[in-house]
């Protein structure tokens, strides 16, 4: 019976601790998100390629296909 008491105590302490820590993590994360939204709202955008890739792609295709291949359409994924 003494061991049962230890078990019940551990269950109480353990479950309360796990719930509390995860609640702190959840609300802490919400706080972090709010602060980041205020202080650094935009992710640094990756610089867009300003050059025209078509000549490079055409040259590569021509080399690979021995001049027979041709690009008809380029679509951004």
């Amino acid at each position, binding site marked *: 019976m003494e061991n049962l008491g230890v*078990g019940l105590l*551990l*269950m109480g302490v353990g479950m309360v601790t796990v719930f509390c*820590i995860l609640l*702190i*993590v959840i609300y802490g994360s919400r706080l972090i*998100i709010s602060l*980041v*939204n205020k202080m650094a709202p935009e992710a640094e955008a990756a610089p867009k390629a300003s050059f025209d890739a078509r000549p490079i792609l055409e040259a590569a295709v021509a080399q690979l296909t021995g001049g027979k291949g041709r690009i008809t359409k380029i679509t951004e994924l």
Partner: protein
Amino acid sequence: MQGFSDILERLYEMTAISNLADTPAFLLMYFIAFVLLYLGIAKKYEPLLLVPIAFGVLIANFPGGEMGVIQADSQGFVTLADGSREIIWDMPLHKVAHELGIMNYLYYALIKTGLLPPIIFMGVGALTDFGPMLRNLKLAIFGAAAQFGIFAVLIASLLLGFTPQEAGSLGIIGGADGPTAIFTTIKLAPHLLGPIAIAAYSYMALVPVIIPLVVKLTCSRKELMINMKEQDKLYPEKLEIKNMRVVKIIFPIAVTTIVAIFVPTAVPLIGMLMFGNLVKEIGSDTGRLFEVASNGLMNAATIFLGLCVGATMTAEAFLNLQTLGIIVGGFLAFALSIASGIVMVKVWNLFAKKKINPLVGATGLSAVPMASRVCNGISTKYDPKNHVLNYCMASNISGVIGSAVAAGVLISFLG
């Protein structure tokens, strides 16, 4: 002729055959090793861990091979080959290797010190994306409910006559997290390391069987049809994340700090998990660290951990009633953890407008990402458009934190 028969006799004694004839229990251990190897290789049940563990079992049970781990008693004494007894912690490592063999050297240097589980956790952190959890923060609370199985089985084990330390180690199988189970067992009941690690990894491998079974017993079709995306449209999340990259970098630092303050005994696990995640999220600046943490170091640690854990399963240590209790208790811990997560979702749904699919509760135990994939498979079986993967990942990842915290509590109170 006398000389020839002497040679034959010495040859017979040199081989393991003479010992095998004396102790047939070794044959049973070979059978167990072969079954585990079959499950790992042919059935692909967690092969990265089950294969080294199974091979460790095999090589540990060849008499004369000196590859079986010798557990020190509660005072730290081990018996050497000449019958003398020494305290293992007073023996220098080269003497451990010389007197007890290299597997004991590896075990006492890498496992008993608690070094490898945190290193594996670092690799797990480097491979984990906390994005789904950050996008669905409310769902993370179900990672706490699913730890109930740990404590329920702890109580049941105490009633069955296990010591509190053994019961804690047995219950932690319900956390469904291999490194956490091993770390806790090393601290609380190292003599049970072999069967507990085997039970933990076997049940993790059986997640595709256990979760559907528990879900079938506890959930209705209507509940499983709850479409989380539609619920999101009906009740949209108010907090939008504008800069996920920065949030993901701050998150591991913040969680480590919070856990370190409240449950310092969980820091070896959570701290390393979050460090691994941090070097991943920083990106190219720490790319080399990420590469080592998630590949080379983690793989090397997995090899040594698996072999050493397997080597603890000598016939003497494994073949007893306690092992049977661990196998049964481990399954109960696992099933109860899944069920308690589901029950919490059901209770939540009684009061909340925004309904949650109970599968999100079922993934509150760790076993990332397999549990989420299995639950996504269940939901799409009922409705092919109902993908719950990202939602399940939220509770699944928080379950890793939850089980490590539960382990920290057990170590604090029972260690």
